[in-house]
């Protein structure tokens, strides 16, 4: 089994710590950088997919019913989805509230 990025010894990384695989940030848990968390009122969601397209982290995932969920392991809480959502169904709330 290949080692995860945070399990490798110093000499097991690519030379110069270059990154040769696209999308490798998926391995990193970046969700705990977040101070605000996105929430959806799914009654207002029109399944347009704008939030999915604008998320810079790919942290919005398609749900079985055609609406969208958040991958909170990776969502950094930037709030772009809230601003871009056409119907205003996404709202950011403080973490810990």
């Amino acid at each position, binding site marked *: 089994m290949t080692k995860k*990025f*945070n399990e*490798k*010894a*110093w*000499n097991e*990384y*690519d*030379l*110069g*710590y*270059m*990154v*040769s695989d*696209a999308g490798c940030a998926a391995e*990193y848990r970046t969700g705990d950088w977040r101070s605000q968390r996105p929430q959806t009122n799914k009654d207002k969601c029109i399944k347009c997919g704008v939030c999915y397209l604008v998320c810079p982290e790919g942290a919005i995932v398609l749900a079985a019913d055609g609406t969208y969920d958040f991958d909170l392991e990776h969502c950094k809480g930037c709030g772009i989805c809230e601003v871009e959502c056409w119907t205003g169904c996404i709202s950011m709330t403080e973490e810990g509230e």
Partner: protein
Amino acid sequence: MGKRVGIEVSLAISEAVKLANVDAVAAYPITPQTHIVEHLSELVAEGELDAAFIPVESEHSAMSVCAGTSAAGARTYTATSSQGLALMNEILFIIPALRLPVVMTIVNRSLSGPISIWNDHSDIMSVRDTGWIAIFAENGQESFDLTLMSFKIAEDHRVLLPISVNLDGFTLSHVIEPHEFLDQEEVDKFLPDYEPLVQLNPDKPVSLGTVGIPEIYTEAKKCIDETLIASEEVVKEVFAEFGEMFGRHYKVVESYRAEGAETLLMTMGSVSETAMEAIDKMRDQDNRSVGLVRLRLWRPFPVKDLRVEVAGAKTLAIIDRAVSPGGTGGPVAGEVRSALYSVEDAPYVASFIAGLGGRDITIDDFISVVDQAEKMAESNEIHQYKMIGVRE
């Protein structure tokens, strides 16, 4: 074997860079490095060297461009001095982290202030911990030879680290010396084409210089240090191969009439040649038991070889050409004390600082250093350093 030419040391270095057939030069002129890059720009303009000569607006840009050209797979060269090196500082750390074998000549000059264009080693000492290999030349021929060897050392796939060749400003860079040049054919046999392993290539896209989060940063730093330490063996291999091919032999720690000597002087750079004269005088006229150790490889610090070279001596008098303000002695002396600390019967280490900002170190100065060091050793004097010739 090539022809013997009387030429300014700076120009000889440019000719070595030309013989190394570099692909890219990015540099900004600064005293006393100027003649090297000036001559390289002429060689490129006249079509004698097929390379991109990239003029830039600062040394920060020069080193940034070097990172780019080296990452593109180009054999890359630059040169600087003093404030120029200081301005490069931010990028200096990044080059070894990316494993880019940039070769740089540092024509050593003191750092401001006060403003000084003259020679000492404060510039290289200020970038000691950037992760570069650092080698010192004592004369023109060594500057020429070490420049050629540097490409082979840096580009070795076990190394892939940047390297600086250090030579003293003016006292070396601006003097005319006889140099034995090498033919292009000989150089080509010695120095193969650079085959990059880290490369920006559209056919195989990679990201270089990415963020190193806390889970990775420690490992990345360990990697640079281990690679730098391991490069000492490659330096020795390349020295040996050069010696075999061209008959000029180099060691990471050189010595001169040091065998059996009770007191050893230790120097780096061109003052070593004056120190040899002083040793000859003390040995031949005064029958004193003295010798000289010259540190050629500054980084990685050749701990084992140093211990061998100084073994048996009672006193080791080290001349530093830089101050480590608020520190434990001259920068070289501090390292040597540390390297000898747990060694049984290690010599007493006396730290002297001399030759700052272009002040000459004379034969009499060296003799005085030996006198003082022997007295200090006798009483096991605890000291930080003594400054030679300072008015008090």
